[in-house]
């Protein structure tokens, strides 16, 4: 019985994940590599021979599709021309399967994936094809940790089975197997390849080019950040200065108000400021009305006209007008005598003061 296994190198798997991890939708593509079936015969004391068939799929490369549903339609019918177009200069015999990455879903093949897989097999006349499924998902709700799960599937008689994926160079190490220094590799072919391609990856000082580029980008980012910090500091200082100015202005205004209030309270003893225009108007209208100037009321609350006292100390009202008005108004009155003007003594005092 064949036991299928999928093998992939760490570089290919990580590049597959890396290429798509930032894509904003599901992605899919084709997988290139080789598949082989090995027959192992083991002879042991208990059995004469034991035939062990191993089906191995080696993933060596992947080609991403530019968009979803690129080589099949709504019902999963495969367009072989589209597949060839995606393959470009790669050979069709190296096509061993296809892959899909979908975020936040279960690690199970969907309805359409199963249909497409079966139709791809029949369209390319290759019964040995694999489907690789990658399902990244969030582990924690704030998104601080993400999980990238991967699995491979093959179909046998329209039944899909999960196949173990083994990543080359990764395996359980025993304690003794920890190496302190990397073992030297002296194969000529390896050295030749490294010489040919290392210039693309390593700079003249032996550092990885990408690392240098990333460091440069980091430095630019830091200088931009520092500039931004400087701008923020400058604006904060400006704000501080403005706030100090505003506080000083407020303080001055407060002091001014307090001093003006103090001056106003000093002049409380002086006679009230008189609105001369109002006085003139009132005088013009009511100068001859003894009722307007009286401070005396009858028991029935009628005003008792009195001799009008003019606002100007040197003007006197006529008594005759007052008398006439009185007779017209009310026959009963209690007092028609003018109340003594209380302001006279004060003015005299004032005169006294001014003289001195």
């Amino acid at each position, binding site marked *: 019985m064949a036991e299928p296994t999928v093998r992939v190198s760490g570089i290919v798997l990580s590049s597959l994940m890396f290429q798509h991890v930032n894509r904003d939708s*599901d992605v899919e593509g084709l997988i290139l590599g080789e598949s082989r079936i090995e027959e192992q015969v083991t002879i042991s004391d208990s059995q004469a021979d034991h035939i062990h068939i191993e089906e191995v799929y080696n993933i060596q490369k992947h080609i991403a599709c530019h968009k979803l549903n690129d080589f099949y339609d709504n*019902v999963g019918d495969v367009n072989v021309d589209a597949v060839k177009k995606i393959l470009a200069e790669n050979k069709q015999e190296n096509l061993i399967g296809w892959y899909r990455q*979908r*975020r*936040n879903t279960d690690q*199970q093949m*969907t*309805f*359409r994936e199963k249909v497409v897989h079966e139709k791809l097999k029949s369209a390319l006349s290759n019964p040995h094809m694999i489907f690789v499924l990658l399902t990244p998902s969030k582990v924690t709700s704030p998104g601080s940790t993400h999980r990238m799960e991967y699995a491979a599937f093959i179909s046998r008689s329209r*039944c899909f089975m999960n196949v173990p994926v083994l990543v080359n160079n990764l395996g359980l190490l025993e304690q003794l197997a920890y190496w302190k220094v990397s073992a030297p590799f002296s194969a000529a072919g390896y050295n030749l390849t490294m010489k040919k391609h290392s210039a693309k990856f390593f700079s003249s000082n032996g550092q990885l080019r990408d690392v240098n580029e990333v460091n440069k980008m980091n430095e630019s980012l830091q200088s931009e950040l520092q500039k931004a910090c400087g701008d923020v500091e400058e604006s904060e200082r400006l704000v501080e200065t403005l706030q100090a100015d505003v506080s000083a202005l407020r303080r001055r205004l407060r002091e001014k108000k307090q001093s003006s209030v103090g001056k106003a309270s000093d002049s409380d003893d002086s006679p009230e400021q008189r609105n001369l225009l109002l006085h003139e108007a009132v005088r013009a209208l009511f100068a001859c009305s003894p009722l307007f100037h009286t401070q005396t009321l009858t028991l029935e609350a009628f005003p008792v006209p009195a001799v009008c006292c003019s606002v100007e100390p040197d003007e006197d009202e006529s008594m005759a007008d007052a008398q006439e008005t009185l007779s017209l108004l009310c026959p009963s009155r209690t007092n028609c005598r003018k109340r003594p003007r209380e302001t006279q003594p004060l003015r005299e005092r004032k005169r006294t003061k001014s003289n001195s």
Partner: protein
Amino acid sequence: MSPEVALHRISPELRPLLCSVVRNGRVGLDSTNCLRVTDLKTGCTSLTPGPCCDRFKLHIPYAGETLKWDIIFNARYPELPPDFIFGEDVEFLPEPSELPHLVQWDAGNPECLLQLVKELIQQYHHYQYQRLRESSRLLFEYDSLLEDPNYGRNMEIYAGRKNSWTGEFSARFLLKLPVDFSDIPVYLLKDTALDPGEDVALLSVSFEDAEATQVFPKLYLSPSIEHALGGSSALHIPAFPSGGCLIDYVPQVCQLLTNKVQYVIQGYHKRREYIAAFLSHFGTGMVEYDAEGFTKLTLLLMWKDFCFLVHVDLPLYFPRDQPTLTFQSVYHFTNSGQLYSQVQKSYPYSPRWDGNEMAKRAKYAWVTAWKVFAFCMAKVNSCCKYLKDQSDY
């Protein structure tokens, strides 16, 4: 997750499709509730501003089970049709060409997803039928019911997992019974707090083993129908007979339910006739009566200057069950402050009489009854007077 929350979180381009599913999505026989959506997630990166959810789990009631299917869209490609993961039914693989709404997927048609789900359910039904073939006995049950147009068109089957220990295979049949509920009086149907929905009666029959030695039937009624028939305890269906088969049992249950419904309908008409007859015989003494359900009436009668009330309560299964008479004094109170009353059940009555005959017989029979009641009231009166005199003394 409420429909509003789901609609709020889904990507705007996919919202119309989901809206018709959560608001109008009634699928299958058990269509009392709409389809439910949970586990709304996104296929976009976590940096994509929301709402951008484009994949969710859809809960579909089917044959007494709840199917949980994953439906996967892509928010960046809203024009593409969805993909599905059919939960635990990993072997369910419908033929895509037999899904017209998948072949001609129209993202602009809000009903497209719902129609596609219905087509998938039909395919799922066929898939379950194929699984039922593992048991010839259960297959026979299904085929015999299918031949009867009353039941075959409204049937869902679910073939359970084979028990790996016992090798037993179980299945459930869910049938919609063809009973007409349209003549049930409206007043019986309206007093339910739940959304009435469609009035439906579903019979679920579970076979715990393939040889039908353990069969458990259960009848499900809409809340309004259950209320109209007198509650969940009012209707008991017979047990599945040993060695029996569904083609004999289901019509039996159907007939039982139909009889019950007819009884309730006739009871309503009989009560109305009864009340009408009493109105014509005791019209001047009628205080009040139930003009909607015709379940009770109250009369004010007088005999030799003695006035009293007569309350007549008609039960749900009238005329099979006799109405209850309650004589009530308008003068006397009990110690607890209630009007003195006396229940009278023994009077001439026959369920075969019509309403007019019942009213006439009641009139003659009550003459004796209310004389006795009046005598009792007189006794009560004299006792009260004696006690009062004693207290005054």
